[in-house]
């Protein structure tokens, strides 16, 4: 059977690519981060939106290879869309994806038997293989002993013991990788599966171009799962017919997929005989004891609520000193710019447009980082799976499963990775329903909006035991999205996406101390992304809005106020300031933005908003955090308070034309509820379109969310006024 290895040679130009694969929760990401550090680039696989992480690994001889981090999977028999990507990449089916020269598989030493299942499959895809044996410390603590050199001998490939979290064993791993990539030796095929299956696979592989033996074997066995259907679709009806015939020839008795599993585990047990010593497989671990509380129906749910409340409270309280620092910095820069630039349009654009606008957004960087810190810590320590378990109970009645929980929770950071994370959901209808409600989860871009209004209008009172009213309001706003998502998902699953309840199977990994590098990388990447957005999309929107609010300059108003000033020559500073404020207000009123805003006012008045809020909300449809920038620009153009560039003060001081304050608690709440529910994010809608391949889903998302936002804001305002909070 030792066929044409020469024929399968994979020539490449430039840098070699090594794919990193492994079961979920094996420390794959930690290893990837440890090996590539800050050189990694996050993008998408061409044509699909699964996150594609590539990083550069410098080898001992100073040459470099690219490491490609593939989604975690238990088996090459793909059952969900993200596993499909991993398998397609390994099989060389992803167009325009660089060819993979070797595979690095990460194994969990404390779960060795299960981890070897995918190794047995990887040994058959004709790629050089290196095994990284991770988490030996956990295994050792449980009394599990593994003879790595003996395992290497049994598998016929290098096995390198490592501890990704402590960065040990990495030098040896790099050396071995370098050697393996250079030699390109494909492991010899272990006789795991029957000869007859291989014969059929090889015959078919020779008949069709671009089809490898490994690929045919996979679809021969898989029959009707996600991957097989995908491949059959690609290679056409003749291929499907031939495949069917081949299958009929070899399939005697039990389904091939069942036979495969038994044969592979038979091989795994043989390979582990004398290599693995696990005296007590069902031992009760510390994780199990912790889970008695954390997955307990009552205590677990309570712990969950306390953890979440703590997270939201911390976002507020921890960030204050950092935010004050950024605020002061922008204040200084603004003051410096006003002094340096000549008065006129340029100074106004820089000070009122760019600094007031972008600065108003950038100030929330500390809060974004704290949010991602918590998400990364909860994910990395293993708690997320427990939360999904607890949430399954709540999600089942809405027609979803606990599997939807992690995408939904990621959406609290940003709906875009949230929508992409739905690829772990096997059922297509569940997946679309999850995507459609994901943007209702309060993403980090809403945080600046909440923060500015809560900071300005919700009293900083202690309610109970260190929990403040501000933190509670923030928590309540996060709940708004969740409580609306429940009926929306329920209705979707009863109408457009009706289907059977889908099964739910999720691994509960052992708890571990979060890895500093992994958490740091998450924070760094999200912070960078946030700053990039502020520097591009938000900067552009700010300048456009500034121009609309600045032009046209009215000669009549300028002339009128010049005359006034001459008439009042020698009057007190106070009177002159008042005059300047009136002038600025009138200018804004007759600007393009002012005129548009006044046309819009009847629509937003029922929500308690003035035209400026209305325009800022309208301008925020491309990206919701634009509102903060636009309000900053509008209010710094409309007011002449040179002392403070703080948006919070400007909002508190804003008045209607009759002198009444624009903002009170009901207005602030109404704006926040609107932003909690509205689909103000072009990128999310675009991702939903790409993921579903249909326009109707993003359109539906946009329409239902905007309608709900308007109704929600209206009800909030009326209720707040009726309760006398105005």
């Amino acid at each position: 059977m030792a066929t044409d290895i020469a024929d399968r040679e994979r020539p490449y130009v430039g840098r070699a690519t090594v794919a990193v694969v492994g079961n979920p929760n094996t420390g794959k990401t930690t290893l990837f981060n440890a090996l590539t550090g800050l050189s990694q680039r996050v993008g998408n696989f061409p044509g699909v939106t699964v996150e594609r992480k590539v990083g550069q690994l410098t080898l001992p001889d100073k040459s470099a290879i690219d490491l490609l981090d593939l989604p975690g999977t238990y088996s090459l028999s793909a059952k969900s869309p993200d596993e499909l990507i991993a398998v397609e990449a390994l099989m060389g089916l992803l167009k325009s994806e660089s060819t993979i020269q070797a595979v690095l598989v990460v194994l969990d030493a404390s779960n060795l038997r299960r981890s070897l299942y995918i190794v047995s499959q990887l040994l058959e895809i004709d790629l050089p293989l290196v095994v990284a044996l991770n988490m030996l410390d956990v295994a050792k603590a449980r009394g599990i002993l593994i003879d790595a050199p003996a395992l290497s001998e049994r598998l016929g490939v290098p096995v390198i013991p490592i501890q990704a979290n402590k960065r040990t064993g990495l030098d040896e791993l790099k050396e071995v990788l370098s050697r393996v990539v250079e030699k390109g030796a494909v492991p010899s095929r272990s006789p795991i599966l029957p000869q007859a299956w291989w014969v059929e696979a090889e015959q078919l592989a020779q008949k069709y171009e671009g089809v490898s033996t490994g690929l045919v074997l996979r679809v021969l066995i898989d029959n009707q799962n996600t991957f097989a259907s995908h491949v059959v679709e690609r290679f056409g009806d003749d291929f499907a017919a031939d495949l069917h015939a081949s299958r009929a020839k070899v399939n005697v008795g039990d389904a091939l997929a069942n036979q495969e599993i038994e044969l592979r585990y038979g091989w795994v047990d043989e390979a582990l005989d004398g290599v693995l010593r696990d005296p007590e497989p069902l031992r009760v671990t510390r994780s199990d004891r912790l889970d008695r509380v954390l997955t307990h129906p009552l205590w677990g749910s309570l712990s969950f609520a306390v953890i979440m409340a703590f997270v939201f409270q911390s976002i507020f309280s921890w960030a204050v000193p950092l935010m004050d620092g950024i605020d002061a910095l922008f204040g200084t820069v603004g003051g410096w710019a006003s002094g340096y630039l000549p008065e006129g349009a340029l100074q106004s654009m820089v000070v009122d447009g760019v600094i007031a606008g972008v600065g108003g957004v950038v100030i929330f960087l500390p809060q974004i980082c704290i949010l991602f810190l918590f998400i990364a810590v909860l994910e990395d320590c293993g708690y997320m799976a427990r939360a999904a378990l607890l949430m399954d109970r709540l999600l089942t009645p809405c027609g979803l499963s606990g599997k939807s929980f992690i995408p939904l929770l990621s959406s609290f950071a940003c709906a875009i990775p949230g929508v992409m994370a739905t690829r772990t959901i096997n059922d297509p209808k569940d997946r679309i329903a999850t995507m459609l409600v994901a943007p209702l989860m309060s993403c980090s871009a809403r945080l600046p909006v909440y923060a500015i209004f809560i900071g300005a209008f919700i009293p900083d009172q202690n309610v109970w035991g260190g929990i403040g009213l501000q933190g509670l309001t923030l928590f309540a706003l996060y709940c708004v999205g969740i409580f609306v998502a429940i009926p929306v998902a329920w209705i979707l699953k009863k109408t457009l996406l009706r289907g059977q309840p889908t099964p739910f199977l999720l691994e509960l990994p052992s708890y571990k101390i979060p890895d500093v590098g992994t958490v740091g990388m998450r924070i760094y990447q999200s912070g960078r992304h946030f700053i990039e957005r502020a520097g591009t999309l938000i900067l552009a929107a700010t300048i456009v809005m500034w121009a609309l609010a600045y032009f046209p300059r009215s000669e009549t108003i300028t002339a009128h106020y010049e005359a006034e000033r001459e008439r009042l020559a020698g009057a007190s500073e106070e009177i002159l300031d008042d005059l300047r404020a009136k002038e600025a207000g009138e200018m804004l009123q007759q600007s393009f933005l002012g005129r548009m805003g006044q046309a819009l006012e009847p629509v937003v008045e029922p929500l308690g908003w003035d035209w400026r809020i209305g325009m800022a909300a309208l301008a925020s449809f491309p990206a919701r955090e634009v509102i903060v920038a636009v309000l900053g620009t509008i209010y710094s153009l409309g007011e002449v308070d040179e002392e403070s560039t703080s948006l919070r003060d400007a909002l508190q001081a804003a008045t209607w034309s009759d002198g009444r304050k624009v903002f009170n608690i009901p207005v602030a709440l109404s704006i926040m509820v609107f932003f909690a529910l509205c689909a103000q994010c072009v990128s999310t809608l675009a991702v939903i379109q790409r993921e579903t391949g249909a326009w109707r889903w993003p359109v539906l998302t946009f329409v239902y969310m905007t309608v709900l936002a308007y109704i929600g804001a209206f009800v909030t305002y009326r209720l707040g006024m009726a309760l006398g909070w105005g």
Partner: protein
Amino acid sequence: MAYATDAATPLSIWGRGDEGTIESVSGANQLSARLREVGAIPGVPVRVLRVGSTVVIQVGSSRFCLRKTDATCIKGMKAA
């Protein structure tokens, strides 16, 4: 008639802390296929860690949660 303890029973009716070995995982759907791939095959030690509408089972050295209704497809022989 044989006593109930002699026959394999679905894990969905096991109590918390019950241990035994897997006898069979039935069904041709993706859930049962995945269960087998992660090691739920005959002879493997199994224990129930949580009961309720969502159950947690330990298969070998891994722990998984699944719905009680789906856990009916796993039958095991309870240890005395």
